[in-house]
């Protein structure tokens, strides 16, 4: 029906652009959909690929909301200070993990964020990071919602890795089919819907997922060159690895 060229098809396809529909959708339609078909938020981070070369230069987009009492200029300053105070230790730790290309800390709307690019398996990255820097990251995590339950990180490794995983943004795949596969896999259904996989038509599943997951990362991003590991780059540049 959605591809129908009839006036009704055209009307339906353009609905999402109508201001009255946007309003009705946000306040009535989507909440009703969400009630009828509850959607779980898809987990964050990249999915491991079966092609070894694809598991290089993966992105982590960690969004950690500050505790309510820290959502103020003073709270944000405390977060900035927690990073600054432990900067050398954190950077030395990242260096020793050996698989991290870049990592930076950003404050966005009462969230402290860590964006990084790393090689290999996500859990190994986080585990090695904690093993290397020990307590230095605890000062940051303590300021964040839910952080108390996972500090000290080095004594709560499994819980901490899970917590990071949950705060890492869901990465919407580049292709609609992969998105629907993610969604259906989460619901225990391995068959991909044969229809309604055109993301330009705003499928209901995407709308509901974006309701459950307000912040997401879109696609695998632009790359100027194929994936190389940190050590491959350092070796090529004769920096030692």
């Amino acid at each position, binding site marked *: 029906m959605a591809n129908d060229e009839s006036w009704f098809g055209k009307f339906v396809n353009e609905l999402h652009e109508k201001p009255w529909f946007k309003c009705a959708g946000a306040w009535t339609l989507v909440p009703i959909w969400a009630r009828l078909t509850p959607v779980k938020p898809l987990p964050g981070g990249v*999915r*491991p*690929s*079966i092609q*070894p*070369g694809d*598991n*290089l230069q993966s992105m982590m987009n960690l969004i950690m909301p500050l505790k309510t009492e820290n959502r103020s200029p003073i709270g944000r300053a405390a977060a900035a200070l927690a990073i600054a105070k432990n900067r050398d230790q954190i950077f030395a730790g990242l260096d*020793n*993990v*050996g*698989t991290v290309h870049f990592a930076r800390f950003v404050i966005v709307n009462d969230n402290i964020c860590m964006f990084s690019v790393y*090689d*290999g*398996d996500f*859990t*190994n990255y986080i*585990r*090695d990071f*904690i*093993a*290397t820097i*020990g307590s230095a990251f605890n000062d940051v995590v303590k300021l964040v919602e839910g952080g108390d339950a996972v500090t000290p990180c*080095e*004594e*709560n*490794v*499994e*819980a901490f*890795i*899970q917590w990071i995983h949950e705060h890492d943004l869901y990465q919407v795949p580049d292709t609609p089919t992969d998105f629907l596969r993610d969604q259906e896999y989460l619901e225990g259904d391995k068959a991909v819907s044969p229809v309604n996989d055109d993301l330009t038509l705003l499928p209901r599943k995407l709308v509901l997922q974006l309701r459950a997951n307000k912040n997401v990362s879109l696609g695998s991003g632009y790359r100027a060159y194929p994936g*190389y*590991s*940190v*050590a*491959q780059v*350092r*070796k090529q540049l004769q920096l030692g*690895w």
Partner: protein
Amino acid sequence: MFDLADVQGNILRGYTGKPHVRYLILEVADAMAARRWLAASISGRYHGVPQITTGDWGTAKPETCFNIGLTYEGLRALGTPSSSLAMLPNEFIAGMTASAAKLGDVGHSAPEKWPAPFNEPKRIHLIATIYADKVEQLEQIQQRALDRNALTLLGTREGCTFPGEKERDFVHFGYRDNISQPRFEGVPDSQRHPDRQPKAPLGTVLLGHPTNLEGLTWRVPQPAELGHNGTFNAFRVLKQDVAGFEKYLDQAASFLLQHPRVEELLPPGNEEKIGKGLSRCEALREIVAANLCGRWRDGTPLALSAEIPDPKMDLTDFDYVGVGDSRCPHGAHIRRCNPRGGQIVQRIANNSRRLVRRGVPYGPPYDPAKPFERDEPERGLLGNFIGASLGAQFEAMSCDWLNLGLQDPRITGSNDPISGANDPRTSWFDLPLTSGDPIRLHGLPEFVSTRGGAYTFLPSISAIRYLGSLTT
């Protein structure tokens, strides 16, 4: 003080004297009866249930050994409190099939292709292992273990070391195996092999003890009697394509014979040193086989003797510190699995991903006199990879080291040449040469494919007692 009698025997002992092993793959039929069965297994005095073999059998060596592992579904089926279940690690809760991409279980090895009983992973609750001298003993213990009220038998897998005094140490690809295991602090070293690797902290293999990563501890499921002294096992049914492996060695040797730099790899006249009566092509086959593994087929480590197999060399007393590519390829199987003290990218991971490995071959030995017959019987290895953290040890090794080669920039992007999920269209392996650039081999197929498996928790004796006493 650590009590060996509280730990299941198969964790710290290899039962190497017992050639026959059978795995019973079981489902809990009735929780209460299964808990009675567990309680009876501690002493072995009631209801005929075989006694669990512990790490301390004193002077009376048991005639047969019996051990158990429980999956997450199994612990749930037994009525383990949800607060305890929630403390189990994610990898274990999700099960082996959820980690398929990390473990290289894709294509032919994908869980969807596993035969019964592994095609229904949620039904696998308990895997019991019987080690014995004779097949009849396996039968007897199986009969005693099977209490139809408590447990339903979903399937079995059976392995046997190769017959013969010399052959018993070898496995299907023709290599000597089961050479050494990590030595642990505080545990008597029964092997007494000289070993340049440091002793591993007990927390490498048992929950509740210090780990190799300074200051890091793994979560111990509570109550303490449930988690303490327990550990995790990755049980794997690994099919080995021996005919395909031998065929690949032929192919690689033919390629090398034509290669302009082959004389660096095998100086003319050296064939006899590789093996008695070997032709040039046969000697090159053995050189390739040694480089793929990191050991000559007789077990000699390349790190100690790169040019020829040398029976006088120690099999275990070596390290990769300062051992360059020309002595042992960085991509060789045993070096990828355990880079020992050698330089690796993940600087803190040296010695932290060590595992206890227990493997026994299954299926008939390959007969080189009848190569490449159609309808080859299935053969392979029933492997157990034991460590206190599935994520930090078994999965970390499989994902980043075996299937990605992240530990060394020279091998990044390649799979393990022997056990990796290789695709001949993209696979490669570098044969090192002393003069510099290596010779790159291409077209390695998948020699090992997964035919089943499960993550199990190997509970301590206290934990078995605790589970047996649950009343919910």
